[in-house]
């Protein structure tokens, strides 16, 4: 009767040993835009980090905001480039996790509201009250710029949940789909990450005849680099500080284009308190 226990013990011990040893430092990023090129871009970031940290660094791609949070929760990744909301979710699930850096632009991120030309709505400095009663498309359900913040401003100005103030509400799954659907008139109004809109505009993918930007939201904090809490124990003293320094000192435009950000600046968990509060108000977090 004793032997099976011994075997089991050995097997578990081996598993534990394997999971602690020889694992490269791994990071992921939410698939928010240009997903198809993320791999090659983030592989470059991995090379840069490997050089700076003098350990093996690997990037693993994930398919959704939720999957990036899961990977962080399961300690499959030690570092992640999150959105505002996914970062808050991940840090709520992992004690000790902290936001260490954000893009320069992320301190004052904004969302654009788009409208199809048939609505007759045009750009204005005020919240577009005329979107009430129309069909509305958000981006991914877990996106800060495509869902959380636009929903917050809609509730603030129209006084009700999206399902009650619009005729139909959809979730496109990506910013690029949101633009395509409003441009086609399948949905009359939508909300999109301003960076994605600017990029697609510059690439000539947007037909200004059919779709236009009608409102800029007030600024809010968004994307961030978040780190597991216990890294100094497993990776050696000072490791967390070195990761932070490597991110903040990243200045190669080619690397920064992966995000795309001008540079990274320091961040802390408290910077995202408003995001957490809004997620709780909207009922996205307990």
């Amino acid at each position: 009767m004793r032997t099976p226990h011994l075997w089991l013990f050995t097997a578990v011990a081996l598993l534990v040993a394997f999971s602690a040893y020889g694992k490269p430092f791994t990071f992921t990023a939410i698939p928010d835009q240009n997903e198809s090129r993320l791999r090659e871009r983030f592989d470059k970031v991995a090379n840069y980090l490997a050089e700076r940290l003098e350990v093996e660094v690997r990037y693993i791609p994930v398919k959704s905001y939720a999957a990036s949070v899961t990977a962080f929760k399961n300690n499959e990744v030690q570092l992640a480039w999150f959105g505002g909301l996914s970062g808050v979710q991940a840090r709520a699930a992992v004690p000790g996790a902290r936001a260490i850096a954000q893009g320069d632009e992320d301190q004052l991120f904004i969302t654009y509201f788009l409208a199809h030309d048939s609505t007759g709505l045009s750009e204005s400095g005020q919240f577009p009250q005329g979107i009430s009663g129309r069909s509305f498309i958000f981006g991914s359900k877990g996106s800060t710029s495509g869902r959380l913040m636009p929903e917050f401003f809609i509730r603030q100005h129209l006084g009700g949940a999206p399902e009650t103030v619009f005729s139909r509400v959809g979730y496109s799954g990506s910013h690029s789909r949101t633009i395509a659907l409003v441009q086609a008139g399948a949905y009359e109004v939508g909300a999109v990450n301003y960076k994605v809109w600017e990029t697609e505009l510059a690439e000539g993918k947007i037909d200004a005849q059919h779709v236009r930007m009608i409102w800029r939201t007030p600024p809010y904090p968004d994307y961030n680099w978040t780190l597991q809490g216990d890294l100094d124990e497993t990776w050696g003293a000072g490791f967390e500080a070195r990761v932070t320094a490597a991110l903040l000192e990243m200045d190669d435009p080619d690397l920064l284009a992966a995000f795309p950000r001008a540079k990274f600046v320091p961040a802390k968990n408290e910077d995202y308190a408003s995001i957490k509060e809004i997620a709780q108000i909207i009922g996205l977090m307990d």
Partner: protein
Amino acid sequence: MSSRRAPATRTTLAFVLVAGLCLLAADLQIITLSPWDELGRMLWGVVSPNFREPLRLADALLQTLTFAFAGISLAVMMGFPLALCFRWAPVRIYCAFVRAIHELFWGLLFLQAVGLNPWCGVLAIAIPFSGVLAKVYAEILEEADLRPLQSLPHGAGHVEAFFFVRLPDVWHHLKHYSGYRLECALRSSTILGFIGFPTLGFHLHTAFLEGHYADVSALLILFYLLIASLRFWVRPRLVPIYALAAWVMLPAGTAFSLHNVTRFLTRDIIPAPVRGSLHDGPEALAEHLPQLAEWGQRMVMDQALPGAITTLLLSQITLITTGALALVLFPWISRIFVRGYLLELGRLAVIVMRSTPEYVLAFTFLLLWGPSWLPAIAALTIHNGAIIAHLIARHADTMALRPDAPRGLNRYAFEVVPRLYGQFLAFLFYRWEMILRETAILGILGIHTLGFHIDSALAGDRQDRVMLLILLTALLNIAVDAFSRRLRARLRLRTTAKAV
């Protein structure tokens, strides 16, 4: 009048009536404004597929095959023994439960508990498929012709009777059905890419969300060719070799962590109101019971119940349109109606229809018609209608016709359709629960099905809600499955997939 009608006809009329009533509650408004730019880009993508990264494509194709073969071989290994003790109620309940949960949901649950490990992908296919296989294998074995039993020598036991009488008689049916499930496994393997496994679906999802239609079309063409070529390279004798190769080639994953599994089971999926107090003894737990009750009530009244109603309404309508499409389509891919290049053309068209992911179809119709139930109904109808057409066409192909059998439309309306109508209904009822499960993909249309709420709970990282909603979805599936089984029994339809 109606009492003289055949039971199959009465059932059909009843279902059409129900679908008609469901239509009253459906949102079918068409809004077309300016879809042509995007549709033009899609069309351009279709005619200019991007094969410039052959290595990436080949890798995705290989991974799709690997997951499918590893998954289906494990499913057969688990399903066959289960089929042998299928008379045992706990086995039947277990099988009904595991197959009531969609591969995608199994995959998502494993991802939560174990992480992005290839085993998750294999198990996500193998577990629900083993439930399906056990059920169908058991039904096939039950239908074996037992007359040869009398020729067994005296003293032969159950084991001999099984291997020398039952099994040989139905062997080719088992083989054919497993072959069909392989095609299903390839589809599932592709779809699992949507949640992160490195199959064709991984790249397909990305390319589609980014609007890179040339990549989308290259990936879809590869997938169509894969399905179309199955009959040339999947030989019973080669299958064990493929399966073995799949297990060897399965990519290495992250190390298994007991900590994550424990956390998932003892924390993540515990309803939020009692999560903190679960381990503080019964008194602390009792204190939070009112909150738990309120949580449960809110989940059921706000999400599960309305979600289940919407899901059912949508499924009932889709069931009828699916049946109608299948009846129109199948003669174009059956040898007793068309031959030569027309037949091949028809087959190719049906492969395209049944292998294009519903999400891609739904998006295309959404551009065309705007957000209502229509894109959903159309997408699910095309996908499922083509699958049933494929199944009944193969059934029709085995049909013996008299030399003086009528031709053309008469052959279709007065000979073939009446003869295979029972089989057709059996397939349609089989598909019922599939349609129910597939309504989960429709978040983009803003239709609040059960799947929509599961997706929302996932986006909020609320595994307790995910778990509850998945369990309720499974219950609904089991109920529909039980109802359709009783219906089939009453109509005395052959429930096995004999013709498959």
